[in-house]
Structure formats: structure tokens, C-alpha cells
């Protein structure tokens, strides 16, 4: 089954990382990503730009209201997510633990995926010629 692993962390801390620090975290995460990829378990994964680049469309009103910034002002922000293909919650938690060891601080929220529309651009292409 598919799980989304939503990555929450204090963005102030992430933007305070030095280049070396950022590269070191990404390298440690890379080891986990590679293992998942080799087992065919890693779906789309995204790292989001800072919330200062975000725009929110609030649709409770008509017409909807466009506001600057993220949907909610929280202490820890949604900074990215993974989609992983796992047998059960235990396996998903195991992956989250590995990711956490590579990038401590903050939290991972594990959410089972209800609807998944794979991006056709990512489908393996028929080799030309």
C-alpha cells in the first residue's frame, strides 16, 4: 500500500543550516533514498521551497481569497513529502525511522494514500530507435 510521509520541521532551523550542513543532511538522506529506490519502493518525493514563497487560496468565501504565505502559521512547517510503497504501517514506520536518523528534529506524519494519479511524464518510455 502507498503511504505519504509528510515532513514537518522548524523552517528557521533548516534555513539556518550552512551549505555544508545542508549537503551533509542530503547526503545522509540520499543513502536511504537509494536503498528505497533499489527496492522499487520510492514514489515521488519533493522538497518544498520556504513558506515565504507560498501563496494560499482560501476558498471558504466567494470569490476565494488569495493571501500571501502558508495556509497555517505553525511552529513546524510542511517542508516536503515522500510517497512510499510498503506492505504495512510497520514498514512505513521503519522507513520513517531511517529518514529520522539521517535528519533528526521535527516529525514525520504517515498518511495512507487514498487516490494516486501517477504522472504520465514519469512513466517509463519506450526506447526510441
Amino acid at each position, binding site marked *: 500500500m502507498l503511504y505519504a510521509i509528510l515532513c514537518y520541521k*522548524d523552517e*528557521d*532551523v*533548516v*534555513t*539556518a*543550516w*550552512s*551549505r*555544508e*550542513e545542508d549537503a*551533509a*543532511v542530503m547526503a*545522509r538522506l540520499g543513502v536511504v533514498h537509494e536503498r528505497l529506490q533499489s527496492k522499487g519502493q520510492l514514489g515521488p518525493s519533493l522538497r518544498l*521551497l*520556504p*513558506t*515565504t*514563497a507560498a*501563496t494560499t487560496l482560501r476558498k471558504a468565501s466567494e470569490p476565494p481569497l*488569495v*493571501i*500571501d*504565505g502558508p495556509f497555517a502559521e505553525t*511552529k513546524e512547517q510542511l517542508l516536503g513529502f515522500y510517497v512510499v510503497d510498503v506492505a504495512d504501517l510497520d514498514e512505513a514506520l521503519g522507513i520513517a525511522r531511517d529518514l529520522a536518523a*539521517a*535528519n*533528526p*528534529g521535527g516529525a514525520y506524519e504517515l498518511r495512507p494514500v487514498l487516490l494516486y494519479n501517477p504522472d504520465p511524464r514519469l512513466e517509463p518510455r519506450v526506447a526510441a530507435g
Partner: protein
Amino acid sequence: MSEANPETAWIAAALAAARPRAMAALLRSFRDLDVAEEAFQDAILRALRTWPRNGPPRDPAAWLILVGRNAALDGKRRSAREAPLPPEEDLSDLDDREATLADGIDATAYRDDILRLLFICCHPDLPATQQVALALRIVSGLSIARIARAFLVSEAAMEQRITRAKGRIARSAVPYETPGAVERAGRLSAVSAMIYLVFNAGYSAGTGSERVELCDEAIRLGRLLLRLFGTDPEVMGLLGLMLLQHARTPARFDQNDEIVLLDDQDRALWSRPLIAEGLALVDKAMRHRAPGPYQVQAAIAALHARAASPEATDWAEIDALYAVLERLQPSPVVSLNRAVALGKVRGPEEALGLVESLSGALGGYFYFHGLRGAFLMQLGRRAEAREAMNRAIALASTAAEAGHIRMQLDRLTREADALPSR
């Protein structure tokens, strides 16, 4: 902060992240930069002792504010020989209610606290170099040694510069009451200018690592300011401008630290993540339909960033944006920059005319003579071009600037050897 050990790196990052808010609150409590700094240093020492053992507090900034305040008050008491220091354990597990209380007190005011902290660094009596040094020391927490390296001065000289700046601030009245809307807007624009000064100090610096470091710090301050004033289009413009300019840094100098002009840069070296963030901010800002100088400059930088090759650059639009900038912020330097766009759109003749109309204001400016020389060269007026470039070299403030002009001069000399003089 290049510590890559995950066990301790999180503490360094948490402390750096909490610094502006904690320093700002401590400054409000003690109304004295030195006392606030000392209290913050005390709190950091205690954090380094207790956080590895107890894990991170729920709100690191609130923890540091509370512990820093207590430490400073203890210091006073100690000097008055009243009460002994409380045992370390009492400080290490601050009651959650206390932390929440400290948070609640500061949350309402912390936006203005941080703005004030930034604002005192741009006191109008302080020369630009002191503003930049002070902001890097007080807000970013860079060591004096690192700031000194960035400005190519001795540590002692930098220490003195910062002490002098602090003295000037202590003698002037720093306003501690909550600012009104007009006052706040004034502070915001002074702080934006100071952050852009930090950026430019990095952008024009002569050597690699310091250059990157100051630009990174300025961008960090810009993000901080935008988080506090999330709906201000000029703050979006400022951050967008810095990101888009900084994206080109890997391509701006060659292996010999010589300047590489925009047209000659390897665009594959431009940083895509910085460009993506910068473009998003420009788009967000434009939606407000309240143009300002930072937004227009960011929009110009965005047109360069969007162009896959120099030939694909929309110079007509850039020329039009410079015309807007000339109206918003009339300055001979802006007009000089416009001449570059004009040269691309209407040719070197017209561009040279614009450049020469600025000779009175910019006669002592390296870039004026360099650009004039370049247009003269394009027009085949080689003797005059050589003279202009020699003046540019004499006025250059970095080796890279002088080297770049020398390279053009060499080309001119080679061409002169091959062609009959005019």
C-alpha cells in the same frame, strides 16, 4: 557552523535559528546591547550543557529568553552578594507552563522586537560599513574574526569598529515603545536597505568564500524579514532580488577569480533552486500592484534568469523596467545601468550618449569609465576606448575589477595590431 555531526549539529542550527528572536527579546528587557549579548551568551552556554542531555526544549527561543533573563538577573544579584546561583538542574527542565508564558508574552511583540533589533543596526549616524558589521555581529551572530575576514581588516580593527558603533547607539535614544504604522514602515525600509548593503558587501567582495557567506547571511535576514512582514511586496522584491542575483554567483568568476560578464556566463552553473524561489517571490509581489525599487530590480533580474541564452534576453522589457526604476528612484547609477539595456535595444551610439550625459555625477566611478570604454570600443573609437579603460583600471576597487578591464584592453591592443587605427 560547518559542524556536520548530526549529534551536535542540530544544537548549532537550533541556536542560530533562535538567535534573532531571543536577542530581540533580551534587548527589550535590558535596553542595552552589551547586557543583552552577554545574557544570550550565558543562555547559549547553559544550552550547550543541558540540551545534549535533555534533548531540545519545545521552544528553543523561549528557553533562551527565559534562561538569558534569569542569568542576567542572577549576575546582578551575585554582584550584589545576595543570592547564590540556582542549581543547573532547575534551569535544565524549565516548566512547560513557564516556557509557554514566556512565549505568550513575546509572541505579540516579537515582530516589532526583531524589527527594532535590526533597526538599531541602521542608525543614520552609522556609516554603511558599521551598519553591516553590526548587523552581522548582533543579528547573525557571526564572530568578529569572520566579519574581519570578510572585510579584509584585522580582528582588532573590526572589534574597534563594532565597539564604536555600539557606543554611538548607546548614546542615541533607541525607541522602545511599540511603533505606529508610519514609524514601522520607515523602519522596514531602513532595515531593507541595510540588508541589501550586507548583500552587496558580499556580492562585490574580492574572494570566494566570504563572498558567498555574506550573501547567504543577507538572504537569511531577508527571509526573516519576510516571515515577519509576509504581505509586504517590497520585502518580497528584496528577497527575490537577492536570490536571483546570488543564483549567478557560481558563474560570475572564473578559476583565476576574474569577473565573467553576464553575456559570457555559463548559465548551466546558475543555481536553479535560488532562481525558482526568486521567480516565485517576484510573481507574488507583482500581484499586489504596488511597484517599488526592489520589485523592479527583482523583475529585471528575473528576465535575465528566465533567458536560456544571452540572445534570448528581453532587453526591450529590461529597458522599460529601468525607465520605471529611474522614475521611482532617480539616480545616475540607475541611468548608467539602463545604458546597457539601451545599447542592446538601440545600439551603442544612443547608449554612449546616455552614458556621457552622466559624466558629471559619475566621473569618479569605475563602472562609468568601463562601460563608456566598452561602447567606444563597439563604435570602433579605439584610442578613446583605451583612455576610458585606463581610467577605469585606476578607479577599480578590487583586483578582479581591474583584471577584467585589463582583459578588454588587451583585446583592444590585439585588434589595434591587426587593424588600421581610426
